[in-house]
């Protein structure tokens, strides 16, 4: 959930003018208003909001009054993205807290939330977060067998029967062709991860 210290949800109807920062404030102190698709508003330090290249460009283009609408991002996802910015923006790449945050961030994400994060990071143009999420997907599917990958992505097997047979053979024979012991018995990883069921 969004840290209350950083993003302050604002009730609908409150005059927006009251929270628009004065132009004389530095960007570190200035806050930007972001609006999720449901209309929820998040007040975020400008420094963090610039974690999104898209938002950063909008700010530079003079979009400083009112809320920046993000019609492709829901509130729960936006609050996660803000959390990410809070732990990464302004920090060095090797920051230990950031790394620890990443580990937990990805570990606890359900597949649905991860999908949302990827789409949001892509839309907002936040490359580090996109990299983190895509790497999490890559790590996950690496451990799946082919059938599981298809199920996960909702993919239909569109190989013809001949192609399917060739693909099966490639996986079974080529991928599992490993050391043969002296008596001719084939040893292969019985992981079952790669062989088609």
């Amino acid at each position: 959930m969004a840290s209350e210290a950083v993003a302050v949800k604002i009730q609908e109807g409150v005059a927006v003018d009251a929270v628009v920062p004065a132009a004389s404030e530095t960007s570190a102190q200035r806050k930007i208003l972001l609006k999720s698709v449901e209309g929820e508003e998040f007040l975020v330090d400008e420094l963090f909001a610039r974690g999104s290249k898209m938002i950063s460009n909008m700010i530079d283009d003079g979009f400083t009054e009112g809320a920046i609408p993000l019609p492709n991002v829901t509130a729960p996802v936006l609050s996660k993205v803000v959390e990410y910015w809070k732990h990464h923006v302004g920090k060095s790449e090797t920051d230990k807290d950031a790394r620890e945050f990443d580990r937990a961030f990805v570990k606890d994400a359900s597949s649905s939330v991860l999908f949302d994060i990827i789409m949001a990071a892509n839309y907002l143009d936040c490359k580090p977060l996109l990299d983190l999420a895509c790497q999490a997907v890559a790590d996950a599917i690496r451990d799946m067998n082919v059938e599981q990958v298809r199920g996960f992505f909702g993919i239909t097997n569109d190989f013809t029967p001949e192609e399917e047979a060739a693909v099966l053979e490639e996986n079974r024979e080529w991928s599992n062709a490993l050391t043969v012991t002296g008596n001719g018995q084939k040893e292969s990883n019985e992981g079952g991860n790669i062989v088609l069921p």
Partner: protein
Amino acid sequence: MSFKSIVRELKEMRDGFGSMSRRSSAAEGRVGPSRSGARLHWHQARHQRHAPCDDVQESRWASLPPELLLDVIQRIEASEVSWPARRYVVACASVCRSWRHITKEIVQTPEQCGRITFPISLKQPGPRDSPIQCFIRRERATATYRLYLGLSPALQGENDKLLLAARKVRRATSTEFVISLSSDDFSRASSTYIGKLRSNFLGTKFTVYDSQPLHDAPMVSTNRSSRRIHSKQVSPRVPAGNYNVTTIAYELNVLRTRGPRRMQCTMHSIPVSSIQEGGTAPTPTAFINSLDEHFSSLAVSKGKDPIIEFSSTTLGEPLVPVQTSGEPLVLKNKAPRWHEQLQCWCLNFRGRVTVASVKNFQLVAAVDASHQVPPAEQEKVILQFGKIGKDIFTMDYRYPLSAFQAFAICLSSFDTKPACE
């Protein structure tokens, strides 16, 4: 990973609604701490709502933009560089047609990245800068020779990647080594048949036959994004045949048994131009009549369509050598130097060969000034073979040879008769 446990649980459901404990089937390479506690609650709730196959959650991934799917597959390809983990990349190419297309586009040739990925990698030239290191294990009882990727046999319990296997078959007037992708199927009618090596009666001349003719014209450049020139699919379908790609000749040393023998390999399928400035070597992108040949024709391909002439053949009949444009590359073995103090012939194998044997050799290009081959290229040891233990030999090969050609040449070293030794 949380997905891992989700997917695992779903699979268990498909497999028959087993318990929520970690799956008891074979251990995975990566095993993390059990996190099923937290997942349990969420998973059970979903289980009550709908059957796993209709899972609404998972089908959202079907709308992942292609450039992000590409990113994910690229990450897998970049992280799994060595075998056996490299098979995860091969698995990506097994999911569906678009995944296969994406994966095949991402994966580079051994020349470009130094990695072996798909079976076709065995027919593509090795890297230019440093060799791919393999070893060969000889099994005398069955006259079988197996080529593995790796520096030397791994410690017990680990798995070395088998690349090719060969079986020696003695005939009345010759010996043949049948080369296959499979270590127990040496039938020439099988889809695993790659080629063969045949010797003459005296064991002084050998011919390497490829099961498939040259398919692609040489690539225009080694740039990854360069367009590929595909030859039109030859019609009628190309039969599995035997295409003479290399001739190997052994000659007695003038000193007969007391000196090293001379070796010469004429690479009919590789032109001398391949080692000249800016040259390239033929690089097939797919086995003929394979599913990948169909896919590669889907890629944008323009350019000439060289039709390769050949006569139809029944299995086992040698054909006219496959001629590339220009003069074929000839390889010769590097002459050892006589070491006066040690009283033996020496070659610098840089630690990759440790047992003296007349079978050991290093092949370099046999060129003269007229070939205009840069000195650096002339110096390169293109193929090195030698003994490191009882029935264990190392084989290091590089551009412009492919693993198949290198293996075949090395096999000839096993069969030379006393006439050459």
